[in-house]
C-alpha cells in the first residue's frame, strides 16, 4: 500500500451506526397530527395477521421464519443456508453470554447429532447466569446505570450495585417483563415489604446528580424530568421530552400531556439510607471494614464533633444560607408549615448536609483576612479541624470503597399528598401555567389513570404501571421485543429503537413485530421464551457469507436473506479476551470492582472544599481477581469511562442509551494492540495454548484458532503463521544483537520449559496479532 493511500486515510476512519432517525419535516406536529385522522401505527392495538403461507415451507422452524420468508419470496430471494455448527455456537454464545465459547463446548455441540442439539444448546445458554449478565448489561444501558453521580464532583453511589444485581437476577429468573417494569417504577407502592422491589426502584434513582446544587427547587424539577423522559424513551419508545418546552413537533403529544405524565412522579424522592435487611457475606465484610474505620477514627471524629458543637447552630444556619432564594424559603420554614414541595427540599437538604458541610463556617471565620469576619478563636478551631481532617484522611484506605450496607430507592417518604404539577412555559419551572393532574397521553389512549392513594404513597405510579403493563398497551411489548430483535440482527424491525413516534422509522416488517409482541404477552411476558424462539429460528441460523444476488435485490440486507455480522460490543471484546487468556473470574454479582487504569490517567483528586478529603476517583482493587471480572462489574464512574470499554463504544450513562454505536477508529487499534493489560492477556493466552497443545507449532496454532475462532487454521494460514514465526524470530534476534535482550515470553506455563525464548517471544507476537484480527473482533 503506498504513501498516497495512507495520506488519504483520516483520523476517524470510522463507521457509525446509530439509531438516529431520518430527517422529518420540521413542521409543527400537532398540525401534522391533525392532517392524519388515523392513529399512528404504534398507538394502534397489537394485531398480528395469520402466519403467512410460504413456498419453502421446510425452512420454517418458527412463525418468525414464515414472516421473514414471505418477504424474501416476494422479492424472489432464497434464505442463506445454515451457518456451520461451529460458527453458530460462537455466534450464539457471544449473543447470549457475551463471551466466546470454549473449544470443548464447540466440539460437544459440533459432535452432537441429535435432533434437538440446537435446542439443548440454546437451553443451556439461557440457563446460565451469564445470560442474565449479558441481558442485564443491555438493560443497564437503558437504565443509565452508574456507580457515581456525575457532574464535576461525581460522588460515589455505593448502593447501586444492588440494583445492578437485581437486574441480572431478574433476567436469570425470567421475571416477567411486566413485573420487571412494575417493580422498577412502583415496587415501593406495590410490594412495600419486599426488599428486592425496593431495590428495583433504583431504576428511577440513576439520574445524574450534583450534591452541591444551591437550587433545590430546580434540582427536583430536573430529577423528575429525568425519570419522565427515561420512562418515555425506554418503556414506551416515545420522545415525550420533545414536549417539555413546546408541544411535540411530530407527535400528538402536547405540553399538557407531558407535564400530566410527569405528575405521576411528582412525589418521589431518592432515599439512600435504607439498611439492608438480609445481611450476607458482603454485608458482614462491609460491616467489619466499616467498624475498623470507625474504631480507628473514633477519637478524631469525636474531637471534630466537639469543635463543631461549639457553633453547631450557627454553622448549620451558615450552610443553609448558601441556597438560593426559593430554596431558602422552604429551608427556613417551620416544619409544621411545610408543603409537599417543601418536604422534598428539606429531605434533599438533609441528604446532602454532612459534618463536613458545617466546617465551611469555621473556614470562613478562621481564614478571612477581613477583621470583621475573622475570629481568632474560630481560627484556632479551624486550624485544629484542618489538622484533624488530615489525620482522618490517613485512614481513608481503611474505608470500604465499593459498597455500603444501605439500599438506594425511590419512595414518597411515607406521604400520600403530592406537590401540585403545572405546565411550565417553555419548560421553565419558574414560569408555571395551568395546573395538571396525572394522565396518560391522550393521543395514545383514552384510558384514565385509576389512582388510589395509599397511606404512605400517592398511588400514582401504581396506576401508571398498571397501564404500562396492561395487555392492551400498544407500545410496551412492541418496544421491548424490538430491542431484543435488534440485539440479534443488528437492527430493530423499527430501526429507531426508542422512537416509535412519527419522526421515528416505520417497522420494516410490521406483521413480524406484532407477532413477536403478541406472543411475548401471551407467554406471560417471558423474556427467555422470546430469546429462545429467535435463537431457534432459521433466520438466526443462516450463514453470514456474502451473496451477490442479495446485494443486487436488497443491498441493505433489510429482508435478512443473509445473517448480519456484527462488531463485538465493548464488554464482549474485553470479556472474550479474558476468556481466551483463561483469566476470566466469573463470579456473579456483588459490589463493583476497580480494574486497573492506564497510568497516564491520574485521578487522585484533592477536593478544595472545607472537608478537604482525598477523593481518589479510581481506587484500583487490591484483589487482583477483581481485575479480571466481567466488564459489567467494573465501577461505572460517569467522569471516567473505563478506557478499554470506552474506546469500543460502551454506553454513556448520562441518559438512557438505546443503541451501541459502532465506530472503527485508530484509537481502538492503539488500545487493542498497545494496552499493557491486553498484551498481558495475550501472553497468558500464548501460555495457555502451549499448556494445552502439544509441542508441534501447527498444533499450537490450531489450538489458538479453536480458542479464538472456533475453527482450525487452514493450510494457507498455517504456512503464513509459521513463516511469520521464522521471520519474527529473526527480527527479535536482531533486537537482541543490538544489546537489548528484553523480550516477552508466554506467561503461566506449567510443567514445560521454554527451550527457545526467541521463538517463544515470536509466538507471543503471533498470538497477540491473531487476537487483534477482524475474525476475532466480529461475530459472523
Amino acid at each position: 500500500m503506498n504513501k498516497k493511500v495512507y495520506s488519504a486515510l483520516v483520523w476517524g476512519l470510522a463507521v457509525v451506526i446509530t439509531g438516529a432517525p431520518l430527517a422529518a419535516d420540521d413542521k409543527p406536529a400537532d398540525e401534522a397530527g391533525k392532517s392524519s385522522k388515523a392513529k399512528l401505527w404504534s398507538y394502534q392495538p397489537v394485531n398480528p395477521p395469520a402466519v403467512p403461507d410460504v413456498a419453502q415451507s421446510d425452512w420454517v422452524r418458527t412463525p418468525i421464519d414464515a414472516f421473514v420468508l414471505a418477504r424474501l419470496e416476494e422479492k424472489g430471494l432464497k434464505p442463506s443456508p445454515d451457518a456451520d455448527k461451529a460458527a453458530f455456537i460462537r455466534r450464539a454464545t457471544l449473543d447470549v453470554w457475551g463471551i466466546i465459547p470454549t473449544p470443548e463446548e464447540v466440539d460437544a455441540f459440533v459432535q452432537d447429532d441429535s435432533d434437538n442439539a440446537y435446542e439443548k444448546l440454546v437451553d443451556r445458554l439461557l440457563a446460565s447466569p451469564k445470560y442474565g449478565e449479558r441481558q442485564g448489561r443491555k438493560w443497564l444501558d437503558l437504565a443509565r446505570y452508574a456507580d457515581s453521580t456525575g457532574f464535576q464532583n461525581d460522588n460515589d453511589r455505593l448502593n447501586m450495585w444492588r440494583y445492578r444485581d437485581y437486574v441480572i437476577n431478574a433476567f436469570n429468573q425470567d421475571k416477567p417483563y411486566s413485573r420487571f417494569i412494575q417493580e422498577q417504577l412502583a415496587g415501593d407502592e406495590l410490594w412495600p415489604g419486599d426488599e428486592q422491589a425496593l431495590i428495583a426502584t433504583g431504576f428511577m434513582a440513576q439520574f445524574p446528580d450534583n450534591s452541591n446544587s444551591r437550587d433545590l427547587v430546580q434540582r427536583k424539577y430536573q430529577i423528575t424530568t429525568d425519570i419522565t423522559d427515561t420512562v418515555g424513551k425506554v418503556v414506551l419508545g416515545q420522545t415525550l421530552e420533545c414536549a417539555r418546552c413546546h408541544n411535540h413537533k411530530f407527535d400528538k403529544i402536547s405540553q399538557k400531556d407531558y407535564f400530566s405524565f410527569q405528575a405521576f412522579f411528582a412525589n418521589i424522592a431518592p432515599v439512600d439510607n435504607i439498611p439492608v435487611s438480609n445481611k450476607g457475606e458482603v454485608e458482614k465484610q462491609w460491616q467489619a471494614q466499616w467498624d475498623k474505620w470507625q474504631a480507628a477514627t473514633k477519637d478524631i471524629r469525636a474531637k471534630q464533633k466537639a469543635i463543631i458543637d461549639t457553633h453547631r447552630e450557627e454553622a448549620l444556619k451558615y450552610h443553609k444560607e448558601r441556597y438560593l432564594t426559593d430554596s431558602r424559603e422552604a429551608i427556613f420554614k417551620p416544619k409544621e408549615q411545610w408543603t409537599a414541595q417543601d418536604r422534598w427540599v428539606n429531605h434533599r437538604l438533609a441528604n446532602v448536609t454532612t459534618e463536613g458541610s458545617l466546617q465551611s463556617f469555621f473556614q470562613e471565620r478562621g481564614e478571612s483576612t477581613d477583621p470583621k469576619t475573622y475570629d481568632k478563636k474560630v481560627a484556632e478551631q479551624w486550624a485544629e479541624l484542618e489538622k484533624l481532617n488530615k489525620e482522618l484522611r490517613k485512614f481513608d484506605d481503611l474505608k470500604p470503597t465499593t459498597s455500603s450496607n444501605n439500599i438506594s430507592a425511590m419512595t414518597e417518604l411515607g406521604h400520600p399528598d403530592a406537590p401540585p404539577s403545572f405546565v411550565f412555559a417553555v419548560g421553565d419551572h419558574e414560569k408555571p401555567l395551568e395546573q395538571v393532574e396525572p394522565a396518560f397521553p391522550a393521543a395514545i389512549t383514552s384510558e384514565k389513570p385509576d389512582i388510589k392513594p395509599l397511606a404512605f404513597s400517592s398511588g400514582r405510579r401504581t396506576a401508571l404501571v398498571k397501564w404500562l403493563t396492561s395487555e392492551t398497551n400498544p407500545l410496551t411489548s412492541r418496544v421491548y421485543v424490538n430491542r431484543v430483535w435488534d440485539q440479534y440482527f443488528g437492527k430493530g424491525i423499527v430501526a429507531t429503537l426508542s422512537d416509535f413516534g412519527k419522526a421515528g422509522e416505520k417497522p420494516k416488517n410490521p406483521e413480524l413485530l406484532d407477532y413477536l409482541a403478541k406472543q411475548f404477552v401471551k407467554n406471560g411476558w417471558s423474556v427467555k421464551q422470546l430469546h429462545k424462539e429467535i435463537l431457534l429460528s432459521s433466520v438466526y441460523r443462516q450463514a453470514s457469507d456474502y451473496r451477490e444476488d442479495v446485494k443486487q435485490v436488497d443491498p441493505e440486507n433489510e429482508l435478512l436473506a443473509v445473517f448480519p455480522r456484527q462488531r463485538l460490543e465493548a464488554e464482549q471484546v474485553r470479556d472474550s479476551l479474558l476468556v481466551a487468556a483463561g483469566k476470566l473470574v466469573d463470579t456473579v454479582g456483588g459490589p463493583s470492582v476497580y480494574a486497573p487504569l492506564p497510568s497516564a490517567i491520574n485521578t487522585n483528586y484533592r477536593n478544595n472544599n472545607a472537608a478537604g478529603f482525598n477523593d481518589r476517583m479510581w481506587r484500583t482493587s487490591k484483589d487482583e481477581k477483581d481485575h479480571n471480572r466481567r466488564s459489567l462489574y467494573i465501577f461505572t464512574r460517569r467522569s471516567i469511562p473505563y478506557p478499554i470499554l470506552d474506546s469500543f463504544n460502551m454506553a454513556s450513562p448520562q441518559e438512557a442509551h438505546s443503541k451501541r454505536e459502532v465506530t472503527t477508529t485508530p484509537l481502538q487499534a492503539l488500545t487493542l494492540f498497545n494496552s499493557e493489560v491486553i498484551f498481558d492477556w495475550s501472553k497468558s493466552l500464548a501460555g495457555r495454548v502451549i499448556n494445552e497443545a502439544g509441542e508441534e507449532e501447527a498444533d499450537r496454532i490450531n489450538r489458538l484458532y479453536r480458542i479464538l475462532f472456533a475453527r482450525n487454521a487452514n493450510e494457507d494460514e498455517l504456512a503464513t503463521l509459521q513463516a511469520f514465526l521464522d521471520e519474527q524470530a529473526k527480527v527479535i534476534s536482531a533486537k537482541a544483537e543490538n544489546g537489548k535482550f528484553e523480550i516477552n515470553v508466554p506467561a503461566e506455563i506449567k510443567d514445560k520449559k521454554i527451550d527457545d525464548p526467541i521463538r517463544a517471544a515470536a509466538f507471543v507476537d503471533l498470538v497477540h496479532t491473531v487476537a487483534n484480527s477482524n475474525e476475532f473482533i466480529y461475530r459472523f
Partner: protein
Amino acid sequence: MSNSSRRDFLIKTGYGLGGLTVSGLLPGGGVIASALADDAALAAIAGENPLAPKAPHFAAKAKTVIWLHMAGAPSTLDLYDYKPELVKRAGTPIPASFLQGIKTSTQGGVTKLIATKRTWKQHGQSGAWFSDWLPNLAEHADDLAFIKSSVTVGATHDISIMKLNSGGLNPGRPTLGAWVQYALGSANHNLPAYVVLYNDKREPRGGVTNWESGFLPAVYQGTPFRPGDSPILHLQNPQYVADSEKRNALDLLRRLNESHAGRYPTDTELQARTESYDLAYRMQETAPEAVDFSKESDATKKLYGLDEEITKPYGELLLRARRLAERGVRFIQVVSGPTDIKGDSRDWDAHQNIEENHGKHSKIVDKPIAGLLKDLKAKGMLEDTLVVWTSEFGRTPWSESGDGRDHNPWGYTQWMAGGGVKAGYTHGSTDELGVQSAKGSEVDTYDLHATVLNQLGLDHLKLIYKYQGRSERPTVVYGKVIKELVA
C-alpha cells in the same frame, strides 16, 4: 488489493452488505473514507466518513478555536471590569436596587462590598482597562474584543461549567468542540480534530463530562492530550515490543485480515478496521511530534514563560495549543488547573483570600496568554485562530468572608481575539458595582457559542443533528450571533 482497485470497488459497492445496512439512517451517513479522500470523484462517498473534512455553511474567518477556560471562575471585577464606585463603596452594604430580579445566596450576608488592592490603567488605543494583575496581557489591549456583559445560569460550578461547555444544565449534550468536529470533520488525518489540554497532573474534575460527545456519535468526543511526551493513551508499544517487531506483526495482521475478507468482499467496515491499524501506527509518530518542543527556539519558549517555574506548566499548554493549531486541529480546549494556595490545591474559585489566589493565578496565565497572542500574530496565525478567554461565571462585588468573592452568573467579562473578531471593541457593560449586565446587551453562553461557530463559518441554527425525533443544535433553543463582535 491495489489502490485503484480498492477505490473501484468502494465506488461500485457503496456500503457493505450486512454490516453497514443502517448507515442510511445517519444524517452524516455511515461509512468510511478509506482510500478516497484525495479523489474528487469519490468525495461523495468520502463524505460518509464522520470525520471527513466538510465545508462550512459560509466562508469561515477562523480555522481553529483555542478555548481558554479559566476553571473556578476568576473575578473579572479585579482584572478587566474597573468599578471606581465599588472601590468607593467598599465596606458598605449593597443597595437593594442592584439585586433586583436575581436569586442569591445570603451566606455571610450579601451586603458587604469589598474591593481589592488593585491599581488600574487604560491600555492601547482602545483604552481598555486592565488591573495590575495582568501586565503582559494589557499590552495586547488592542487585540482583544471584550464581552463585559456575560450572563449564564447556575450558582455552582458543575452546572455552569456544563452549560459553558455544552449548553446543557444536565449531562448528555455534546460539547462545543464535539459540534465543531461533527460540523467540519478533521483537517488533519493524523490528529483528532478536538483536543483537550489541562495543566494538572490529575484529570480535570468531571473528566469526560467536559469534552463529551453527548448524543452525537462517540467519534466526536474530545481527545484529552495528557501531560508528558506520549499524549494519547496507548500510544506506546507494549513493553519490550520493538518497532521492527511491531511492523512485522502489523504486516501479518493485514495478511490475515485480507485473507479473511475474501468471504466478505464488499464489507467496507472490515476494510476500515484493517486500515485503522496502519493509521494508528503512524499516529504513534505524529502525536508525540505535535507536543515535542525540541525544535522550538529558546525565544519562543521564553515568550510562553517556559523559563519560569510559575508560568511553565500553563505556558507549555499554550505552546502545545499553538503547535496543534498549526497542525490543523479545529478546537483546542485548554482547562486551567489548580495551584497551591496555602497548602491547598485551588483553582480560581476564591471564596476566601482572593488577594493571594488571584495574584497567583493571574501570574500563571498572564505571560503565557500574552505570549500565545504574540506568537500567533508573528506567525500570521492570529487572523484565522480564534482565542476565547472564558469562564463558567464571574464573581460578586460582595464577599461572604470579607476577603473573597462568591459566584456571579449575572454580569462578568470574557474576551475573544483573532479569528475575525473586532479587535479593540468592548461589548456591553455591567452596572456601577459589577453585579448585573446592562439590559439588552447580555451575552449568554449560547450567544458565545453561536458567535464562535459563526467565525468558523457555521450557522448555529443550521447545524443540526437529528436525535430522538428532535432537530438538535448546539445552542439548544437559544442563541444569537453577537454581530457587533465580528470585524
